[in-house]
C-alpha cells in the first residue's frame, strides 16, 4: 500500500511540475493544483496510513494521527485561497497585457519598459 501511495504522490508531483513549467497561466494554475494535491497527501501521510481509525474519540480502538489531518485541513483551505488569488492575478494580467503568457508583457521585456527601468534607476 505504501508503495502505491508513494507512486500516487510521485505522479501528482511530476504532472504538477511539468504543467508548472508551461508558458501560459492556465496550465500553470492547473499544475499548482496538482502539485498541492500531492503535497497535501504527503503531509497527510506523515501520520502514516491507517484504515478505519478515524480520530473521533469512542469510534475506534486506536486512532489515526489527528495532527497532520488538522494541518492538512487548513492547508487545503489556504491552498484554495492561494489558487483563487493566482487565478485573479492571471485574469488581471490577461486584462492588462491582452495576453496570458506567464512572462507578461508579450514574452520578452519590451524596449519601452527597459527604458523606463533604466530611467527609474537613475
Amino acid at each position: 500500500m505504501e508503495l502505491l501511495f508513494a507512486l500516487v504522490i510521485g505522479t501528482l508531483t511530476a504532472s504538477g511540475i511539468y504543467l508548472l513549467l508551461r508558458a501560459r497561466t492556465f496550465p500553470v494554475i492547473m499544475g499548482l493544483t496538482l502539485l498541492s494535491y500531492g503535497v497535501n497527501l504527503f503531509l497527510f501521510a506523515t501520520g502514516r496510513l491507517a484504515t478505519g481509525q478515524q480520530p473521533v474519540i469512542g469510534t475506534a480502538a486506536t486512532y489515526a494521527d489527528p495532527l497532520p489531518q488538522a494541518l492538512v485541513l487548513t492547508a487545503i483551505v489556504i491552498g484554495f485561497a492561494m489558487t483563487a488569488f493566482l487565478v485573479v492575478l492571471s485574469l488581471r494580467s490577461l486584462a492588462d497585457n491582452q495576453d496570458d503568457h506567464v512572462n507578461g508583457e508579450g514574452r520578452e521585456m519590451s524596449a519601452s519598459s527597459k527604458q523606463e527601468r533604466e530611467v527609474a534607476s537613475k
Partner: protein
Amino acid sequence: MSLPLVVLLPFLGAIAAPLFAQGGRTAIAIASSVPALIALAALFPHWSVLSAGGTVLESYEWLPALGLSFSFRLDGLALLFALLILVIGLLVILYAHYYLEAKENVAKFYALLLCFKGSMLGIVLSGNLLLMLIFWELTSLTSFLLISFWTHKQDARRGARLALTVTGGGGLALLAGILLIGNIVGSFELEDVLAAGDQIKAHALYPVALTLVLLGAFTKSAQFPFHFWLPHAMQAPTPVSAYLHSATMVKAGIFLMARLYPALAGTEQWFYMVSFTGLVTLLFGAYVAMFKHDLKGLLAYSTVSHLGLITLLLGMGTQLATVAAVFHVINHAIFKASLFMAAGIIEHETGTRDMRRINGLWRYMPHTATLAMVAAASMGGVPLLNGFLSKEMFFAESLQLNLPGLWSWVPPIVATLAGIFAIAYSARFIHDVFFNGKPVDLPIFPPHEPPRYMKIPVEILVFACIMVGIFPTFSVGPLLYSAASATLGFDAPDYQLAVIHGLNLPLLMSFLALFGGLLMYSQRQRFFDFHARFPEIDEKAVFETVISKFVNLAHRFTKQVENGSLQRYAMLLVLSVIAVVVLPIADNGFHIGENGLSTIDWPTAIAAGVLMISALATVLWHRERFYALVLLSVVGLIVSLAFARFSAPDLAMTQLSVEVVTIVLLMLALYYMPSWTPVESSKAQRIRDALIALAAGTGMTLITLAMLTQPFSSISEFFLENSKSGGGGTNVVNVILVDFRGFDTLGEITVLAIAALGIYSMLKNTALTPPPGDGLGHAWTRDHYPLMLRQIARPMLPLALMVSAYIFLRGHNLPGGGFIAGLITSVALILQYIASGMIWTQERIPFRYHNIIGLGLLFATITGTGSLAFGYPFLTSTFGYITWPVVGKFEVASAMVFDLGVYLAVIGATLLALVSIGRLSPHSAIKSNQESV
C-alpha cells in the same frame, strides 16, 4: 545629569529652534544659541575636578547584554574638544545669521547645525565606544545634510555624497575595529579599554584592530589617500565649512586617535602607520594648496595639510609630540575658523571666490583684510601668533626621532619643506587677495565692508590667535596641560610654553621656512607652469564614474539573474529543490525503513490507478483547457476519497467541498481566457521539462516511501487524551483546529480574508471581455440561465443550508465543523448565482461579503480575547452542557463561537472571490429569464 544634558541639549534645540521661525531670523539664531550657553554653564563646574587630574563619569544602562550603555565621560581632552565645539559653534551661529540670505531656509540650517553639534559633543563625551560610534555615524549623516544644504546645486549634492561615502565607509571599518577591541578587552566602556592598553597591544588581533580603527580616523580626518572628500565638501555654505573643517567633523578622527592613544599607541605599527600617513598628508596638502585658485579650495587643502601635521605628531609617539598635537588642535581650530569666515565675507561681498579675480581688496575692506591677514600669518606660522608656537614644537620634535641612519633626516626636512609651502600659500592668501593690483571683473563691484556684527566672530578668533601667540601659558596653559595629560593617560611632562626658546635649530627651521616660502611665492609663476603640466584630477568625477560603473554592473547582474521570465524562475526553483534533496541522498544513500509494506486491496488500487491516469491525462491534454479541467476534477475527487479511505473523514469532506469551489472558480476563469494553449516551446524544451518533472516525481516517490516505512512517534497522544476532557469534543481534528491550535486557525482565516480582499481590489476596476465563443467556433448559448438548473437549484438552497448547519453543530464531536459547513454554504449560494444570475441572487442577499468576513474575524477574535477577561490566556476555551427541549442534552463550548467565526469568514472569503470574478462579465448584468418573462 549634566553630561548627558550637554549632549542632549543641541538635539532638543534642533527641535525647538524651528518653532521660532515665526519670530524671524534673529529669534531663531538666539534660540539656537541657548543650548550651547546652557552646556557651557553645565560644564564649567566640572573644571575643578579636571584641573586636579580627575575624570567625571556618568553612566546609565541601555543594552547591558550588548555592552552598550549611556556612559558619559569628561576629562581634559573631552573638555577641550567640547569647548571648541561649543564656542566656535556659537560664533558660527552669529556669523551664519549674516551670511545666509533672507530667502533661505534658516530654520532648517540651524536645526541641522544643532543636530551636528549634538553628535560631535556625543563623540567627545561618550564613555562607551559603541555609544561613540553611534554619534560618529550621526556626524556623517548630519554633515551630509549640511554639505548638501543648497540642494539645488548638483556639485553640493555630489560633494555631500562623496563625503558620506568616504566617512561612512570609514565608520564601518571603525565599527569592526571597535568590536574587535571590545572583544579583546571584554568591555566597551572607555575606562576599561584605556586601562587595558597592554592587553590590547599584546593580542594577536591588535594589528587588525588598529588598522580598522585608523581607517575610521583617517577617512574622517581626510588623511591621504582619503583626503579627496574634503575639498569637495567646500560646496557647503561657508559657515558650515568654517565649523566642519576647523573645530569639528575633521577633528573627530584626530580626537579618536588621541582618545585611544593610551590603548593603541606606542607600538611600531602605530608609529609607522600614523606618522607616515601624517607625513604624506602634511606635504601633499601643503603643496596642492598653493595651486588652488579657489579661496576655499586653498583653505581646504591647507586643512588637509594641518590635519596631516597633527596626525604626524600623534604618530611620533613621544610625549612632547603629543602635547604639540593637542596644542595644534586648538590653534588650527582658531585660525582656520576665522579664515573660513573671512573667506565667506569676501565671497559675500565680491560674489566670487576666484583669487585670479579677487585682487587689491585692501582698498575696499581694510578691516576685514587686517583680520584675515593676521589669521593667515598664524596659519603660515609667523612668530607672535598661535600657529607659530605649535609649529615650533613640531619642528623641535621632528629632530628628536630616533630613526636609523639617514632616515632621521627625513622628518626635519619634510617639516621644513611643508613649512615653506605653508608660508607660500599663506602669502598667496594675503598678497593675492588684498594687494596685487586691482580686482578683475567682480560680480559685485565695488566691494565694501560687511555688516558690523558679521565681523565680530572673526575678531574674537583673531584676538584669540594673538592672545595664545603672545601669552600662551596664561591663555591656554591649564587647559592644554589637562588635555595633554588625558591624552597620554598620565601627567604630561614638563614643557615650556614660551614665545621664543632662544636661538636654536627649530627657530632656524622656522626662519628657513619663512624666507623659503616668501621666495617660493615670489617665483610662483614658475611653479604654476610646472604644476599645470600635470592633468588635474577631479576626484568627484572619478568617484561618480566608479559608482556608476558599480551600478551598471549590478544592473547587468540583475538582468542576468532576473530576466522577467517566470518560466525560468520556476525551473530554477524546482532544480534547486531537487538539488537540495539529491545531495544528502548522494551522501548517505537511500534506505527503505524496516516497517515493511502493507497489503493492497483492489478498490484502493483501482482508485489509485484512475487517479494517476487522470493526472497524466491532464498533462497530456492540457492544451484543451476544458477537458484538462474535467480530468483535473477527477483527480481532486479521488484525493478526497483517499482521505476518506485512510481514516480522515474531515479532510475528505473539506477536500470535496473545496474541489467543487475550485472547479467553479477555474471554469469562471476559463470563460475569460483562451480555451486553448498554443504550442510555443520547442521539443527539446518539453523533453527537458519532462525530465525535470520526472526527477521531481521520482524524488517524491522515494521520499514518501522511505518515510512511510519508518517507525514513528507522534506528539498527538496529548491531543487524543485531552480532547474530550480539555476541549470538550470528541472530534480531535476539530478540537485541534478551534481549541489547541486556535491561534493558528485565527491566523489562517485572516489569510483567507486578506486573499479575498486582495482579489476584490485587484479586480475592482478591471475590464475583461470574454471571447465571443468557446474557441471552437461555437457561440455561447443565449439561454444564460437554464430552466432545469434554476428549478433544481432553488429548493436545494434551504436543504443545503440545513445540512451545513447540521455539519457545523456536530463538528466538535463528529466529522464536520466551521470550515466544512462554510464551504457547503458557499457551494449552495454559488449554485444560486450560476442558476439565476448575479442580479437575481444579489437582490435576495441583502448583505455585502466584506461585512461577513469582518464579522467572522470579529467573532473569532472576540472569543479569543474573551478568555483574557476571565484571566486566562488568549483563546482559552471553556464548555458546558445545557438541556434543550426535544434535542436533549447539548454541549455548548466557547470554541463553537470561534468556529462560527471560521464559518462566516470562509463563506465571506469564498463568495467575495467568486462574485468578484463573475461580476467582470458583461453578461452578469443580464437578468434572469424568469424576471424578464
